[in-house]
């Protein structure tokens, strides 16, 4: 968490729907919390589920993956693969004891600027509730 006790969230957005949706939120001057930092990928199918683990390990308190609605994938099927993989990952992380509030996935289309705001708010709120995730940091052990 940052100094002001705010959760740090890394989001992976597909270029065609969710990134465009987040852009639309901007164009529409929709205001939302600034905790979410976006990494643009071409498709949610690109999101290696281990990125989620890696983000949590490297300083994120929450991770969000967002892409096109099922059936709307620019590459036809990428979001279906992503859904299966990340669904599995979520189950795994939960079993290992990672608070499920730390990882979310959403479908946000290019026209859903408002939904993007809601997703961000939900993600931030959840991560805030889950608290800082120092336990899993890639920290340097003591001398």
């Amino acid at each position: 968490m940052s100094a002001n006790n705010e959760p740090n969230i890394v989001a992976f957005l597909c270029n065609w729907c969710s990134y465009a949706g987040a852009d639309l939120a901007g164009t529409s001057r929709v205001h939302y919390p600034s905790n979410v930092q976006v990494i643009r990928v071409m498709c949610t199918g690109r999101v290696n589920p281990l990125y989620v683990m890696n983000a949590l390990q490297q300083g994120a308190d929450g991770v969000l993956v967002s892409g096109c609605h099922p059936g709307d994938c620019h590459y036809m099927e990428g979001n279906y693969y992503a859904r299966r993989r990340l669904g599995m990952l979520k189950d795994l992380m939960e079993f290992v004891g990672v608070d499920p509030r730390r990882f979310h996935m959403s479908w946000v289309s290019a026209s859903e600027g408002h939904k993007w705001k809601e997703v961000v708010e939900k993600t931030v709120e959840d991560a805030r509730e889950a608290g800082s995730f120092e336990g899993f940091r890639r920290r340097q052990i003591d001398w």
Partner: protein
Amino acid sequence: MSAMLLNKEKWPDFVGKLTGKQLWAPQIKDEQLRFAPVAEGEEPALDYKNTRVPPKNVVFPQTETLFRFQVDGEEVDEPKLDEEVVLLGVRPCDARSMVIVDKLFSWDYDDPYYARRRELVTMVGLACSEPGLNCFCPSVGGGPASTEGLDLLMVDLGENYLLEAITEKGEALINETKELLEETRDANLEQKEKVINEAAQKIKRSIDPEGIPVGLPGLWEDSLWQRVSASCLGCGTCTFLCPTCHCFDIQDETEGFESRRCRTWDSCMFEEYTLHTSGHNPRPSRLERTRNRINHKYNYYVDKFDVIACVGCGRCINLCPVNIDIVEILKQVKEAL
């Protein structure tokens, strides 16, 4: 050097006396016996054969920071190693392993980290009265009450522990705890001999290393290596659990703008260990790696430092998932000679 008796009832007091130093001793944690720092109120477990993982990480941590620096920076920070450690209840084989490893870590260049940690550690040994199934320390120059590497040896005499100082450090420890100790009588020393002899009798496995160091080079191309390595999984169990294995890797690890150069245990059983960047691997298969492990312990180390780099603790035999048994290999080596 003095020898004293410690009544087992006073054991907790004795442990309590060793304050001001970090105390490492075998403890049951997560249903497993392992060497771990003893926290206030915790009591070491001494009624055991040996830990799965040897206590070598006290002087040679599995991961150790060599120094730290800033990304793009030029100045480095070294760790300050100044905490004294008492390694309590260490088995003679494990203590002896450190003496063996000392030779390498002080060969021409002193490894400052290792050397410093060795300086800071006081080794309080516990003689074995119930050796394990795969112990064969007498075969390689050790024994259930070997004092090599120890500052102080404890022998379980039933109601009492016999405490024998081996070094000045051990003597100092006896002095610090003097009020808890009693003088020994001759009978105690006799009893000690008996315990030790009985223990030695219980050791079932053995190998006579005579001829192995000089003979191994001649067996380089022998078919036995194929036989003994075929089932090897190439994992690091045997080497990581070996008290004398000392190889390491050095890596720079960065988190954000903070970096450190650290070393971690490495294993010659890993394919990646000798792999050149070009893709060439001088030890390309498990055969070469298994052969190297045996040669390193029973030939190369003997050549260089005049001692077999194996203390006969049996850990590699106990925990090899596929029953690769160093005593069996050595027997085959002898047969092949």
